[in-house]
């Protein structure tokens, strides 16, 4: 048995697929691709796949990952082509990597994500900068209450670092955020909904303005799931 890690992007209309729909889409695409899948036992066998933490519906992902077990090794280019042919527009395979035996699964490989947010154009960069400063290092407590269960999050707790870049034009600026995965980390929606009023912006959270740029493991330095060392904000 050989384990592979698939790097793919989820953009365009495919960004609107829920995690469940994404799983179904990949499962069926893999089944159609003819790759030698390995199945779980039991009454309802399913292929052994593992995904990275799910993307919110509407959020694009440029480097997402999926581990799959195959019964036999195969040339990477061939696997990439046969799966790629079966995926709908918006889901595209970046690369395929054979994992060494005993390698930790994707779930254990990532512990933070880099999100990029296109800020609404109503405000100047200075206003955004002030709002962000307050969001990151202000002294007043900032909490987000998750609507579905009322759970309270400290908005600052999982927010490792962020950077504002002026782009000009319609998008005005983009905000890069490095966010830890963790129980205590506020959902991205909560971070954005806290930030917008700080910049006196009336807009609301729009998932289509968000892109997950990368999934990383942070432990001293940054490493991506393919084992490559990365600088902060390096694509």
């Amino acid at each position, binding site marked *: 048995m050989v384990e592979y890690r698939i790097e793919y992007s989820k953009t365009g209309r495919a960004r609107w*697929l829920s995690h469940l*729909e994404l799983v179904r889409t990949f499962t*069926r695409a*893999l*089944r159609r691709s*003819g790759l030698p899948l390995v199945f779980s036992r039991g*009454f*309802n066998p*399913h292929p052994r796949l593992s995904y990275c933490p799910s993307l919110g519906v509407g959020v694009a992902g440029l480097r997402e990952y999926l581990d799959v077990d195959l019964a036999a090794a195969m040339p990477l280019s061939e696997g990439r082509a046969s799966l790629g042919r079966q995926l709908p527009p918006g889901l595209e395979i970046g690369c395929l990597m054979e994992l060494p035996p005993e390698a930790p699964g994707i779930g254990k490989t990532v512990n933070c994500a880099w999100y990029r947010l296109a800020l609404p154009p109503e405000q100047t960069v200075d206003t955004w900068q002030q709002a962000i400063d307050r969001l990151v290092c202000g002294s007043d407590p900032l909490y987000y209450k998750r609507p579905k269960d009322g759970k309270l999050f400290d908005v600052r707790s999982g927010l490792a670092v962020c950077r504002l870049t002026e782009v000009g034009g319609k998008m005005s600026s983009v905000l890069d955020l490095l966010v830890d995965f963790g129980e205590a980390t506020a959902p991205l929606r909560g971070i954005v909904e806290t930030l917008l009023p700080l910049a006196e912006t009336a807009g609301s959270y729009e998932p289509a303005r968000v892109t997950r740029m990368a999934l990383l493991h942070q432990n001293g330095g940054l490493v991506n799931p393919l084992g490559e060392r990365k600088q902060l904000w390096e694509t």
Partner: protein
Amino acid sequence: MLSVIRQAKESAGAPGARLRARWSRRRLLEKLAGIPGVYIPSFYSVEYNKNGGVQSFTALRPELQSCVRRRLAPDLNDAFFPTAPVVPLAEAVHERGMLEVFRGCTRGCRFCQAGMIYRPVRERDPRTLLRQAREIIDKTGYEDISLVSLSSLDYSDLDGLLPALGDQCTLSRTGISLPSLRVDSFSVGVAQKLPGGRRTSLTLAPEAGTQRLRDVINKGVTEADLLEAVAAAVAAGWSAIKLYFMVGLPTETQADLEGIGDLVRKAQRAGRSARGGKKLRFSISASSFVPKAHTPFQWEGQLPRQQLTESHAFLRDLVKSSGADYHWHDIKTSFLEASLARGDRRLAEVLFEAWRRGCRFDGWTEHFNFDLWQDSFRAAGLDPEFYAGRRLSYDEVLPWDLIDVGIDREFLVREHRRALAGVATADCRLGSCEGCGVCPSFGVEPRLVKASR
């Protein structure tokens, strides 16, 4: 408007390309009307009598036949079947590939429209089916494949088909499912052996509570069949059973409703003893009888809503007292269904009015607004009771007489009379033609892969 009567591929292939040519609408309709199986409503007029029924039909062009005959594919082995359907990325209602094992069912349930209008039985060869199954698995990626014929386990060569199909599904771990099961232990046994058979809930449809009423509707199921099926289901590991019944069937009496209660209790007992004293979960689903066009019950009316409500309430109490769940199909929906099922073209106005009033997705209870439908009938000057509840006489012209599905009217009358007399009619696939008229009128024969068992 254009309707192709049944098995479109048979008729549509040739002119398909030309539909896109620049013909005037009229010219196009004229050309289409020349193709057998194509019904152009505007080329026929309907005259009504003073009682509100249909008086006659008139073909408005000399070259047209007096009625439109359906088309039929005599051999399904070379008939088109879609093996690469669109696979939606979002969750769909039917998350599985469909394999049509045969078309047509001649068990002859007298309430069933599909069992009349798709006659005769035409089975596909196992070779064709295995090839189609392979294609469906390869091209859709579905995790399950469903054998979607009416009563699929009536297929004459199950022994030749199922093991090979099972083998073919092994590598891709594709499950095989059956949308419904015949009520007998054989079927349960077969279902158990299918790969991916989920051991949660098994559905069986005895339809009526007494042998008398089951003979009336020609549902060839006995109490013994049901009890054996329940025991077999327990042995096979199912822990819940769903039973389907119909309320308001022709000739139904209080005794038949009580019969449902009895049958449920007996089934519970059979289940319990098969499980060594442990209770088996039963849930009972009941719908209300809707008379359908082209069936022996087309002349019957639906019971008034008040009466149906009382019957369902009575049954609910009866069934619940023995510890089973009871669900019933919304009576207003069944009533609307009945008022459309035997309708004529004047109902087009009702549909349009309902659409204008915002009726959409009416099959979903949360979207169904009965008042809007009543308004729509009123606006069109029609009475839904007239369509749903009226008992028709044998000599009336029926609104669907314009469509010839190949079944003799005399056969339907005979079947209706036998129903009222409680006499069952055999399945013609077992050897003897029951004379429904389809085969001689199309020059075809039932097509069984293997001579009957």
